[in-house]
Every structure is written in structure tokens, then in C-alpha cells.
């Protein structure tokens, strides 16, 4: 941010929280992302849908640099992801610098990935204490408040194995929120859950959206996308096929592939 950069994207006066420009990603010979263009404004909830294998998870993982992109540009809050630009040269960031950037991006996984050797509250405290160097007392207090916010105040001392899937996922959301991120990424947060547990998790996410959190949500919950989403993006085969307001995309899809996909999931 220190050096003013003319290539930095500015759209309509508001700097987008996430901006992808022709993003490509390959694993060896397999070309997975084939030129993704996307913009997510601050406070926007962007839902990402598409068939299995279309590259939704891969794209999310690129946003917080769990995967490195092969071509194109990706900005989060005006900062290039994974690289530093000096003149017209790109320099790879060091592991430590990448780690620092990830602090501001929360991620919630399909399989929760809670730390099984820590209690719920220790899971939530881990980031603030280890990464932000908060004192344990402060972190514990904030963690307790966050657990309360996701409706799990009474489960602070439970280990993940003692929690239901829905409870684990809510702890995972609290853990991500503890870092006070400016962007939250959700990768199919409810698809490993029993149907009756999905609602609790979606309620928490709805609350986050109301509080103005910028969110990118990969989901198969079309109801959630319609109600909470500000934008809906349909991906297929590593490309964005169609995007727009959820009601329009869902109600009046323009592309054959979108129609075919929606007819299967709706």
C-alpha cells in the first residue's frame, strides 16, 4: 500500500474487496481455473455455485493464497495476493508475509477442520493469542463473546469430538471471526451437515451478512443465496458462466449450462 500504484483497480469510486482478473490455475497438466473475472464490493455477499469439479474451492483457496495462481491478477482490499509489485515486476512474498496477509481473511471449511486437541474456546483463542499476540485473558473474553454470538456459550469447554457437526461448524465460524477479518470465505459450510443442523449455521451466516461482513460463499443452499446473497456467480469448468442478482440468475438464467445445472439442484 505504501507505493501508489496506477494499476490498482478502482471501480466506481469504491475499491472492491476482492477483484479477480483473468485468474488461471493449473495443477500440473490439469487446467482448473480458466480465466476468472470477478468483483466483490465491501459488505457484499457473493454466492458461488456450480457443478462439482468446476473449481469453486480452488478459486476460494487462491483468494487467501492456499494455492498460488499461475496467471492473471487477484487483489484483496487493494493488495495483490501472494505477490508484491515493484515497477512492472512481480516478487513472490515470503511465507511470513503471506501468513500476515491471511490474518485479514477468515475461512470456513466444508469439513470444519477444528483443532481436535483443543476445546472450543481454545480453538477460538488460538489465532488471537498466537498470531495477534493478544493476552490470554483478553482473548478468552473475546472468544467467550464470540461463542455466545454463535449460540454456543455453554460449549466453551467441549472438545470438537464432543460437538455435533453443526456446533463444530459454528465454532469454526467463531474461530475465523476472532481474527476480526475484513473478508470471510465459506466453502460449502453446510454440505457435511445433517439437514436439521443446516439452519443453525445459516442463521449465524445471515447474522454476519446483516452486520455488513463481506462474504464469498460457495454453497448449494439456493434458499440462502436468494435471501441473503447480493450477487450470485455460476461457475462451470473453471469459468464464470453467468453472474448477477440472485433472483435474476435463479429466476431467469440466460445460459443453457446454468439452466441445466439449476434444473438439477432446484
Amino acid at each position, binding site marked *: 500500500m505504501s507505493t501508489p500504484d496506477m494499476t490498482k483497480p478502482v471501480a466506481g469510486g469504491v475499491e472492491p474487496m476482492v477483484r479477480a482478473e483473468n485468474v488461471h490455475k493449473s495443477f500440473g497438466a490439469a487446467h482448473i481455473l480458466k480465466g476468472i473475472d470477478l468483483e466483490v464490493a465491501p459488505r457484499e455477499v457473493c454466492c458461488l455455485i456450480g457443478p462439482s469439479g468446476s473449481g469453486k474451492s480452488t478459486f476460494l483457496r487462491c483468494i487467501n493464497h492456499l494455492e498460488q495462481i499461475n496467471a492473471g491478477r487477484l487483489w484483496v482490499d487493494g493488495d495483490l495476493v501472494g505477490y508484491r509489485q515493484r515497477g512492472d515486476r512481480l516478487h513472490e512474498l515470503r511465507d511470513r508475509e503471506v501468513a500476515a496477509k491471511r490474518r485479514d481473511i477468515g475461512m470456513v471449511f466444508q469439513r470444519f477442520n477444528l483443532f481436535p486437541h483443543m476445546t472450543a474456546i481454545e480453538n477460538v483463542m488460538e489465532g488471537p493469542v498466537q*498470531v495477534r499476540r493478544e493476552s490470554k485473558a483478553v482473548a478468552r473474553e473475546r472468544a467467550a463473546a464470540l461463542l455466545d454470538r454463535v449460540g454456543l456459550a455453554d460449549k466453551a469447554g467441549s472438545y470438537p*469430538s464432543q460437538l455435533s457437526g453443526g456446533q463444530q461448524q459454528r465454532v469454526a465460524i467463531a474461530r475465523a471471526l476472532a481474527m476480526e477479518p475484513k473478508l470471510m470465505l465459506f466453502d460449502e459450510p453446510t454440505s457435511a451437515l445433517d439437514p436439521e443442523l443446516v439452519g443453525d449455521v445459516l442463521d449465524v451466516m445471515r447474522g454476519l451478512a446483516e452486520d455488513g461482513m463481506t462474504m464469498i460463499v460457495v454453497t448449494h443452499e439456493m434458499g440462502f443465496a436468494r435471501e441473503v446473497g447480493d450477487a450470485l456467480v455460476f461457475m462451470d469448468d473453471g469459468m464464470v458462466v453467468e453472474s448477477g442478482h440472485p433472483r435474476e440468475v435463479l429466476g431467469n438464467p440466460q445460459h443453457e449450462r446454468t439452466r441445466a445445472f439449476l434444473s438439477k439442484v432446484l
Partner: protein
Amino acid sequence: MSDTEAGRTPEGTAGPSQAAPASPYEAIRAIPVRHYGRWVAAVVVVVLLGWLAYGFSQGKIIWSTVGDKLFDHTVLTGVWHTVLISVCAMAMGLVLGVLFAVMRLSRNPVTGAVSWLYIWFFRGTPVYVQLLMWFNLSLIFHTINLGPIYKNDTVAVMTPFVAALLGLGLNEGAYMAEIVRAGIQSVDEGQTEASHALGMTGAQTMRRIVLPQAMRVIIPPTGNEFINMLKTSSLVSVVQYSELLRATSDIGISSNAIMEMYFVASIWYLVLTSVFSVGQFYLERRYARGSLRSLPLTPWQKVRANLTTLRRPKVA
């Protein structure tokens, strides 16, 4: 608790606490299967044991010597030395094991190659040979010269303890490196990702997230390694370190009680390995936190639980 009581009195005569009385039923009274094979096996075993005991009682063993020498001062020093060298060598092996496992798994090709070489050499040659080589190092290097830091005669540095520690510790490190590597690789990749997503660095992730979880996989084979170490340490008598085996066999030779002293040694080895097996149980229990819904009871807790269930009917 009311359901356990109800279970004990199937005729439905349980206390008034029972809300809805179960429909009356009659417990089945059947003649249990007779296991004749078990009786035959038991008789055979008793006969064989008696035969063995008789044989030993007739052998030329002076059992009183075994009893007398069990707590002999020299023997006790040997026991202490065995524990000392085993614990020190194991600690060294653990540290080296973690270090070389992490090096082996790192993306740095240099550390990976170094680690591979270390494991290749120290696992590929007998520990007996390694002990002898450390002990005789002065044959090729008269002095140990670490530039401005340290300089001394090799003979003075390479005491029996140091030679034993280097021999056992470096060898153990090679085995531990493989055990630790297996442990690290057993941790789900999602854990590393979640940790990275929080903004933790690679080192933090290893220390806070991966290694504590790898411990569950690492501890059981490490316990075996340690018990092996207690026994393998008997080899270091070759470098003149007076541990248990050397202490007992020296006495055995001088007092002409060779077998008696081997019995003394065996008794002490059994005591040591038993004590450390108990320690292993508690260590495994500690690192099972979070992976089991309820921890296994310690023997002491089991006794207490049994006592309370025995007492309960009287109380009720």
C-alpha cells in the same frame, strides 16, 4: 442410577423411584455350556509350571544370593546408570528425531538430503559398531578442536558415558526421525490449512497444531523404543560404562555366582520396563485428549469406580 438398580432386580421390585414399572418377566435359567477344554488346558499348565519350578529348585542355584545381591550397592548403582543412560539417550533421540523429521519433510532440498543421509547411516549400521567407533575415536583424532570455542584431548572427552550417549542417542535419533515423520504425516492436511488460514506461520503450525496431534501416533512406538532402549543399553558395557548388566556380571564372576547375578539383572530389567510401561499408559492418556469422547479410566479410577458400585446398594 435407577436403571442400574432396575437391572439388578429384574422382577420389577425396584425402589419407588422407578417411574413406569417394566412389564414383569422371568429371567432365563439355562444350563451354561461346559468348557471342558479350559479345564484340561489349566491342568496342563499347572503341571508344566510345577515341573519347571521343581527343575529350578534342583538346579545348582543359590537363591539366597539372588535375594542378597538384589539391593547390593553396586547393583543399585548399575540400575541407576542404566536408567540414566537410557533416559539421556532417549531424550537425545527424541530431539534429533523431531529435528530430522521436520528437516526431511521441509521443502528445502538441502535439509532433506542431510536428514536422509543421517537416517541412512545411523539406522543402517549396528549400534554395537557405532558404540565401538565412538569409544575408539581417539585412534584417529587425538584432539577435538572446535576452533576458538573448544579444544581438548579426545580421550578426556570420550568418557564411557559420553561414548555410550553418542552411540545410543544418535542411533535412536534415526529411528525416532522415522517415527516422528510418520506421526506428522498422519495429521490431516485440513489442519495445516485451517492453521494457515488463521495466519499462523509454518513453524507455529508445526508447534501448535501438527506436532501435538502427531503425538498420539508417535507415543506408542516411542514407548516401545524406550523399553527397547532400557534393554539395548546393556550393550554399552562394551565401552566400559558400568550399567546394570556390567555391574551384575562383574559381581557374578568375582563371587562365582554367574547365573544368580543374571537373575538379579533380569529382575531389575523387568522392574524397569514395567514401571515405564505404566508411565506410557498415562502419557498416551494425556495426548488422547479431544480424540476420544471419554478418556480410558486409570487403574486407580477403575478401583474407585468398582468400590462405589459395590457400596451403592448398601447406601440405597
